[in-house]
């Protein structure tokens, strides 16, 4: 392996490019027309412009990506997460073109990609699953009967689903038909497959997932869990490792289940087995939810507490090397938390935001890692996932990791595009989150956190004074500009007192 094409964009493409350089591998980037000057392009040795703007015109076009690898002499493809990372057609196309695919075999991706098929395989392998059943959306009576048997509330899910798309909560029979129709529409649009199933909604459950790694020699280990219960409409927002509710016994039990799940589909490379967990301590029960056959967005928290670089591990496995450590050699130290910084307006229904990043300054401090995918001056395009960056704070203890995250978010400056940074600060400050007493419906049950808090008494006066002077200077003062500006002589415009606190 000498030259790697990264079939992705944003922070994950930048992070993978960094690992490639650490391994003395050359980097080929691909990009859409909208991303020609994006950081993942600037991080590469060579770039192939796929053209187009929407994902299907660019990052989802397998033929063009394989052609780009051929044209640039790349001998391997890393899919990142999202886009083609869970499409078995990509590893198949790589095999046909004689390229190494940095990920699992197509068969494992396909088996886990159909949630219905995966459930059957897992049940056969003795892995406990959330009660659920496949449905035919055209058979309204059959759907209603299935929901009654499972017991409300139920979740309507897309068999090809992921990332919360094609998923709907239904609390009673009246809302069932509309939810099934909406989920089918969303699933068909997002995945080209409207196949649905119903699952019992486990109220109060936590989302805890286990990182696994399997080599081509047949060895499979787990690297512990990540707690991902803080989700908004099934999209993870804050993740941490270890889970605050974890006991060594439960970790071992879940790890054993996760390894069994991976082995059941002939898994190789790194992957994540997601579980719902009900209860705590010795009485806690875990149920298989799904397996993500790729690198996860939240992989850095596992890296922080195990010291294992998961992207390097992906390359080691793809090169045919045995796992560098045995199952009992994995140790966990300290605590790590990740916050996803999105271009979105929480006070405005979390609408995704596009626009120019006038100022973008990442925090830097002991125990703080930022995986960013944007740069100052860049236009955030409207066509892709609105994730701008991930902040990962780690420390010996959970309270110190939380404090480091609070300070990191406080000093993260993003101007020109609304973000969820201030929302994240309010979420982290909540006593339930401080105690770790959360579940998968917690964020959706706290919509008040999306609303801006009134500014402290002095802040509005300061903001008005600063805004008046900054406006007069067109936003920037020259390095030659000396002296101070008194804001009192600026005529106050009534609208300037109506500033909106974003976040």
């Amino acid at each position, binding site marked *: 392996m000498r030259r790697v094409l990264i079939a992705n964009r944003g922070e994950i493409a930048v992070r993978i490019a960094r690992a490639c350089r650490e391994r003395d591998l050359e980097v080929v980037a691909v990009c859409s027309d909208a991303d020609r000057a994006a950081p993942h392009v600037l991080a590469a040795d060579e770039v192939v412009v796929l053209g187009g703007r929407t994902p299907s015109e660019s990052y989802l076009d397998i033929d063009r990506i394989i052609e780009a690898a051929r044209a640039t002499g790349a001998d391997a493809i890393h899919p990142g997460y999202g886009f083609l990372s869970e499409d078995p057609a990509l590893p198949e196309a790589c095999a046909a073109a004689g390229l190494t695919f940095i990920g699992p075999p197509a068969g494992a991706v396909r088996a886990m990609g159909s949630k219905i098929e995966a459930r059957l395989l897992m049940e056969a392998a003795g892995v406990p699953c959330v009660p659920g059943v496949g449905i035919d959306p055209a058979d309204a009576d059959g759907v209603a009967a299935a929901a009654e048997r499972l017991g409300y509330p139920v979740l309507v899910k897309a068999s090809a689903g992921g990332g919360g798309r094609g998923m709907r909560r239904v609390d009673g029979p009246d809302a069932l038909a509309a939810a099934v129709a909406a989920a089918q529409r969303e699933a068909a649009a997002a995945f080209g497959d409207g196949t649905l199933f119903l699952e019992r909604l486990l109220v109060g459950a936590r989302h805890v997932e286990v990182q696994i790694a399997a080599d081509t020699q047949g060895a499979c280990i787990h690297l512990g869990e990540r707690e991902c219960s803080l989700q908004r409409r099934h999209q993870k927002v804050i993740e941490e490792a270890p889970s605050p509710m974890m006991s060594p016994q439960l970790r071992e039990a879940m790890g054993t289940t996760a390894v069994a799940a991976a082995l059941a589909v002939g898994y190789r490379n790194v992957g994540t087995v997601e579980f719902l967990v009900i209860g705590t301590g010795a009485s806690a029960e875990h149920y298989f939810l799904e397996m993500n056959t790729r690198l996860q967005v939240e992989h850095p928290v596992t890296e922080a507490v195990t010291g294992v670089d998961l992207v390097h591990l992906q390359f080691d496995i793809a090169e045919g090397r045995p796992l560098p450590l045995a199952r009992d050699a994995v140790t966990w130290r300290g605590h790590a938390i990740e916050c996803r910084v999105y271009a979105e307006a929480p006070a405005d229904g979390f609408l995704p935001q596009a626009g120019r990043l006038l100022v973008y300054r990442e925090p830097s401090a002991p125990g703080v890692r930022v995986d960013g995918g944007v740069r100052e001056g860049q236009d955030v395009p409207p066509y892709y996932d609105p994730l701008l960056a991930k902040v990962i704070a780690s420390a010996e203890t959970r309270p110190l990791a939380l404090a480091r995250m609070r300070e990191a978010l406080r000093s993260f400056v993003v101007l020109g595009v609304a973000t969820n940074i201030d929302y994240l600060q309010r979420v982290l400050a909540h006593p339930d989150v401080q105690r770790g007493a959360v579940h998968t419906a917690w964020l959706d049950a706290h919509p008040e956190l999306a609303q801006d808090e009134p500014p402290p008494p002095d802040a509005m006066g300061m903001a008005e004074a600063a805004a008046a002077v900054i*406006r007069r200077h067109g936003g920037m003062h020259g390095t030659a500009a000396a002296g101070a500006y*008194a804001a009192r002589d600026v005529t106050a415009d009534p609208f300037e007192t109506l500033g909106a606190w974003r976040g």
Partner: protein
Amino acid sequence: MAEWHVEPVDGDPRTWIVGRREDPRAQRTVVGAVDARGNVWLRIDGRTCVMPAPGAARPSPDAPSGAGAGPATLTSPMPATVTRVAVTTDDRVRAGDTLLLLEAMKMEVPLRAPHDGVVADVRCAVGDLVQPGVPLVVLHEGTDDDAA
């Protein structure tokens, strides 16, 4: 009324120090920028604040554009693709009814009626890539009673 003192930070054209003239020790560092519409973006004390351009209406997240008396013109809040058109001209709708479904950044975003009314015009079709501010649906005010 407090008098504020705004001072540039040498070598960092985006950063300013704001303090009280009568108490220079009570100071805050402010990072600021002006966007293309003239809004001033500020980061103060770990919070972001947007001060609208003079004369601009305050952006109100709760009220869809055009809400209130008279015909409402509904627009997308951001560049998006129209994935579903749920109404046609002359349809009577209730406040909160979904008129259009938009998709932006992988999210389904419903465009809802800000008030009861009658659809006067639909100016988009499924598959259209729409820009913010461009009218998509025109809605005339009216209730069941006065429209009947």
